[in-house]
């Protein structure tokens, strides 16, 4: 049988991100997949040594636009721990609200793209229409739709007024109502199930061995979510990881959709419980020491290692993003797949190459 090597990406009609795979195929069957990175490598970790620790917030927010708030939150937590800063409770709740809204709009973006990948354009447009509501909340509360830039070392730079907290409660209730019929389509439609059930199966054991993170890990039966570490205000919010057990594209899809509802519920809880108080404490001096800190990004576990030496600039900032962790599982699920299923399999890890290459 003749083998051919087909480049998949970095520009491809179905890919929102410049993922690049070199696929070896026999007829229509993939037998090997090799990743090719570098298309959007920007050397942001190297930039850390040339920017002071406050400026680095703006840099880490640009590792990935779609989860910029969560990158900044992770980095700020690391610096705050090094400096021994106690962030005010209201700031922690505000961070939760903005970060969970980011998870909602990230998942809705992905769900729309996933629907588009198997030809459901109407579903795609409806999901993105709902996503606009979340973007409007971001714009109204932070002044920006995507990179909200609300995190600072020691807290947050702006508050959300009581009127807007009430408005968000109203908005998220309407978003939930609009999403419910789409959840039924995504999980019950014959065509969608045909394209996703039993495709790209990762066993529970293999998924763990390959270092998967986030919905990719939870879609294979692992009840692990970094928010269980109770950073920020998660120690006062009720929350259980969303888990599915079949390890296929359908399970990963279902995890993300259920997590969208879950994040809306977390936002509701946070708004109902948010205390009044200060927004930030002022840092004094420069950070010193080293720390590893993790948070749960929409795509999974985000890991930061930060080392500082008492100077203005960090000595080292290492960022391991969830897509970086989910590429080895993708390489494992592709062999044996049909070429037509590759876009669905690749999208099922919700790849963010901007994050991955930094």
């Amino acid at each position, binding site marked *: 049988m003749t083998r051919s090597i087909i480049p998949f990406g970095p520009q491809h009609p179905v890919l929102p991100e410049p993922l690049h795979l070199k696929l070896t195929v026999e007829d229509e069957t993939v037998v090997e997949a090799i990743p090719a990175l570098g298309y959007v490598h920007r050397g942001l970790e190297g930039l850390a040594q040339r920017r002071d620790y406050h400026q680095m917030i703006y840099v880490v927010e640009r590792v990935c636009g779609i989860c910029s708030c969560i990158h900044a939150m992770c980095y700020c937590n690391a610096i705050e721990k090094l400096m021994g800063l106690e962030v005010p409770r209201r700031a922690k709740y505000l961070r939760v609200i903005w970060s969970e809204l980011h998870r909602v709009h990230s998942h809705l973006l992905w769900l729309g793209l996933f629907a588009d990948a198997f030809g459901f354009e109407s579903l795609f447009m409806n999901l993105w229409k709902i996503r606009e509501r979340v973007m409007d909340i971001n714009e109204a509360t932070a002044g920006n739709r995507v990179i909200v830039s609300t995190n600072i070392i020691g807290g947050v730079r702006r508050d959300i007024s009581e009127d807007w907290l009430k408005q968000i409660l109203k908005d998220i209730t309407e978003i939930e109502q609009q999403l419910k019929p789409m959840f039924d389509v995504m999980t019950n439609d014959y065509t969608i199930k045909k394209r996703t059930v039993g495709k790209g199966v990762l066993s529970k054991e293999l998924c763990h061995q390959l270092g998967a993170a986030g919905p990719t890990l939870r879609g294979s039966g692992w009840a692990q979510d970094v928010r269980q570490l109770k950073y920020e205000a998660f120690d006062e919010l009720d929350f259980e990881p969303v888990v599915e057990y079949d390890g296929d594209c359908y399970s990963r899809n279902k995890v993300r959709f259920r997590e969208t509802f879950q994040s809306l519920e977390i936002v509701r809880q946070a708004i109902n419980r948010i205390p009044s108080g200060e927004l930030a404490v002022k840092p004094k001096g420069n950070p010193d020491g080293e720390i590893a800190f993790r948070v749960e990004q929409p795509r999974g576990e985000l890991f930061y290692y930060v080392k500082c030496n008492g100077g203005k600039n960090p000595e080292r900032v290492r960022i*391991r993003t969830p897509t970086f962790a989910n590429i080895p599982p993708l390489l494992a699920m592709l062999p044996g797949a049909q070429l037509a299923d590759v876009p669905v399999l690749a999208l099922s890890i919700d790849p963010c190459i901007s994050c991955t*290459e930094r």
Partner: protein
Amino acid sequence: MMLDASTISLDGVRNSAKEMFDEGWRFVTQTVVDLGDEGFDILFHYDKDLAETHYRARVPKGTVVPSISGIYFAALLVENENRDLFGLEYDGLVLDFNRTLYLEESGDPMTAPFCKITTFINPNAKTEA
């Protein structure tokens, strides 16, 4: 505040990885810290049920580091990234991109946009000059 990391020797890199794998730890990532004349700190980060364990190996520059990608396939990408960005050499890397994970397979990587911070040394740089 220093990271609570167990110090391991170069010989202990694979042994510790094998032990962690057998005990069901998930590989999170490696971190390389350039210590200048003192060499590199290579940190190995693992997770199990959200508990973290870190190992630290301090190696002189130019040392060939045992790859753990044969034990944890997930280490494949980060070890190749360390090849690109720090010039580290690994022994037993399951798929060696030979310092072209982020860089073009041909051409001069030092002139590539956005890649000027790499420590990659172009072997042809002197002859070209």
